[in-house]
């Protein structure tokens, strides 16, 4: 989600709410005989308001699970989630009097709140900056869950290109030129010159299959400049009719490189959710327990 000018009304409203809360909190904290307390009328008001905001923000998960539930646009839900959560944080501090809690449960809650908020802010920043990076650097990106499947398709495509090259009928002159290139400039008349695609086969077996099958980042072809030099060398060692195959393989390698990059981007772009989402559910659950026990005692 890009944080653009469409967020401005939300930011302004959030700032107003926080400032209003601060305007109420300051005199209350100064005048409170025993200092600001969560169980006081003002403290409870802040707590209830913050809990409601967190609950509404948490409904985003439900909304995402039911896409057909057409209550508001997804963008609106996302903005609400972001800004209501941010407003809830200062309200929680007003509720507790800027204390990190004295009991086990309150300390756990404040820790969870801190982790959830920080992970959310990190996620929001990542979601703001990385997508444009991906668009610029990964024009060949695909659906993330299909990367393995696409990668297998690339390997098959490379094999098909090799098979097509091996099956192609070549001009004898070309074959001689290819043989000369392989033999360092001389040709033995008695031996039949090898098919120029042999070089491709050798390259495929030695490099390309491994790059398209295994861990892409560990392979030398993953580095763009290394790949460029490698394919230039390969291109120089095969006949011109094989050059299209080599270029196709180069394109496949570039796509493989971008798919690996997409995987990395995706882990960064969404990995924070493995922290943010579970802890959010725990936070909401324990907040309910805290409210119950607090009102009870």
């Amino acid at each position, binding site marked *: 989600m890009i944080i653009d000018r469409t967020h401005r009304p939300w930011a302004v409203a959030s700032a107003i709410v926080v400032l209003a809360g601060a305007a109420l909190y300051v005199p209350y904290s100064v*005048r*409170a*005989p*025993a*200092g600001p307390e*969560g*169980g006081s009328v003002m403290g409870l008001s802040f707590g209830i308001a913050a809990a409601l905001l967190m609950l509404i923000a948490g409904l985003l998960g439900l909304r995402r699970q039911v896409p057909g539930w057409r209550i508001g646009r997804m963008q609106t839900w996302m903005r609400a989630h972001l800004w209501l959560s941010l407003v809830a944080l200062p309200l929680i501090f007003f509720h507790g009097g800027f204390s990190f809690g*004295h*009991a*086990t*449960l*309150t300390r756990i809650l404040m820790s969870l709140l801190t982790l959830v908020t920080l992970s959310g802010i990190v996620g929001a920043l990542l979601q703001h900056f990385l997508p444009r990076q991906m668009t610029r650097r990964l024009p*060949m990106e*695909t*659906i*993330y*869950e*299909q990367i393995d*499947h*696409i990668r297998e*398709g690339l390997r098959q*495509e490379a094999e*098909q*290109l090799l098979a*097509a*090259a091996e099956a*192609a009928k070549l001009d004898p002159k070309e074959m001689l030129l290819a043989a000369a290139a392989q033999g360092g400039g001389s040709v033995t008349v008695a031996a039949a010159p090898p098919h120029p695609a042999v070089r491709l086969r050798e390259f495929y077996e030695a490099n390309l299959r491994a790059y398209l099958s295994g861990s892409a980042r560990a392979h030398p072809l993953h580095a763009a400049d290394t790949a460029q030099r490698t394919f230039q060398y390969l291109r120089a060692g095969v006949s011109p*009719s*094989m050059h*299209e*195959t080599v*270029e*196709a393989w180069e*394109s*496949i390698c570039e796509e493989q490189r971008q798919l690996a990059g997409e995987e990395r981007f*995706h882990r960064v772009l*969404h990995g924070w*959710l*493995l922290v943010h*989402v*579970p*802890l959010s*559910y*725990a936070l909401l*659950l*324990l907040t309910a*327990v*805290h409210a119950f*026990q*607090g009102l*009870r*005692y």
Partner: protein
Amino acid sequence: MARRVRTAKSLAQRIDLDYFKRLHPFRRWKFLLSVAVPLVAVVWVAALGIADHSRPYSAGPMSAAHAFVGSRCEVCHATTAGFFLRHVKDNACKSCHDGPVHQTRQTFTPSCASCHTEHRGPVRLADVSDAMCTQCHADLRTRDGHSRYENRVADFDTAHPEFAPLRSGKDPGTVKLDHEVHLKAGLKGPHGPVQMVCADCHRPPADVRPWPYAAPPVEPIAAAQPDPLAPPPTRAYMAPVNYEKHCAACHLLNFDRRFSELVPHKEPKIVHDFVVKKLSEYIAAHPEAVRQVEVSVQRIPEVKIETRPARDAADWVAMRVSEAEQLLWKKTCKECHTVKPGAGPLPEIPKAQIAVRWLPHSVFSHEAHQMLDCTACHARTPHSKETADVLLPGIATCRQCHASRRLAPADSAQARCFECHQYHDWSKQAPVNGRYTIPRLLKGM
């Protein structure tokens, strides 16, 4: 040769259309963690509920006084409205200790927990915030609308009236005392010149040292058998000045040169009866003295000496009693007391009215201030000549140290209300009928 063609159609055809039916590892982990982490929280809460362990929900550590309760929340948080509400009620506090009312005419009585806030760690619960006091005393009202106390007290530093004795400006005591004379160098003592200090006369009850300049000529009235249950004497307040202990060695109550005995330091009637008795006993033992003419050995303008011989023993006693009482009423007693004509032949001497405790609505401890010289606070004393001088230090003296607003907290003596005042009227303390056994109190058994 094959060329690599990337069209939208060719790219779309690469996609496995059933991919969304299978959970990607990333989504699987997100789902599993979203279930597992809250489940851990649920299990933890359930375990606490099964074990009936409430400490994780506590608002904070207990004070030192209540630490023995431990995690037994129900000792104070007794169930009131069914299962749910367990607010602390005053009855829970009063099951262990009484909290007498402050004033019967106060407009409302705050609950125990509203002033004595628990769960703030090892703090003294009696250290109450000023706001608890000023919620009434900043604008004091009573049920009947009339308060005889200052009705606007907000804090000690800036909004506390001058102490009441200094506002009235006059010591109600009737004993004449010139502090300046008593504190001067070379004061005539029983055995030569002395230099008195404040502690010679002003001592706490716990200080039982003898008077330093001479043994008292009159034995103090023997104390009754000490009460073993009485609290030990303190060093907070000074005991009132006592004639027998502090004055008698220098201010002798001689009445006649024939007697070394002193008249009792009592009312004029008792003194008169004593003098008559002594002189009667003397003339009975020395009847020849009836014919003797008195020679004046002391030139006291107020005392008229009869120079004629007495007619008989009774006349002799009457003459000598008159002379003795002239000496006493017009000089000796008058030295320190205001002697007024009485309805009969004997004068009236007002009660001494020495203030024992100047500020009855506050508490003070001299012992806490014993590092100071007496005149550091009682600055006017060395130059005081008049009994009417109120030598109690004013509030400005106290504010030099007890100034929480002007000085940094680390540099200021405590200046909150509880330091000098008590809310509960402990004279009305009621007994508490304890209802706990030790196992029940500690373990709930």
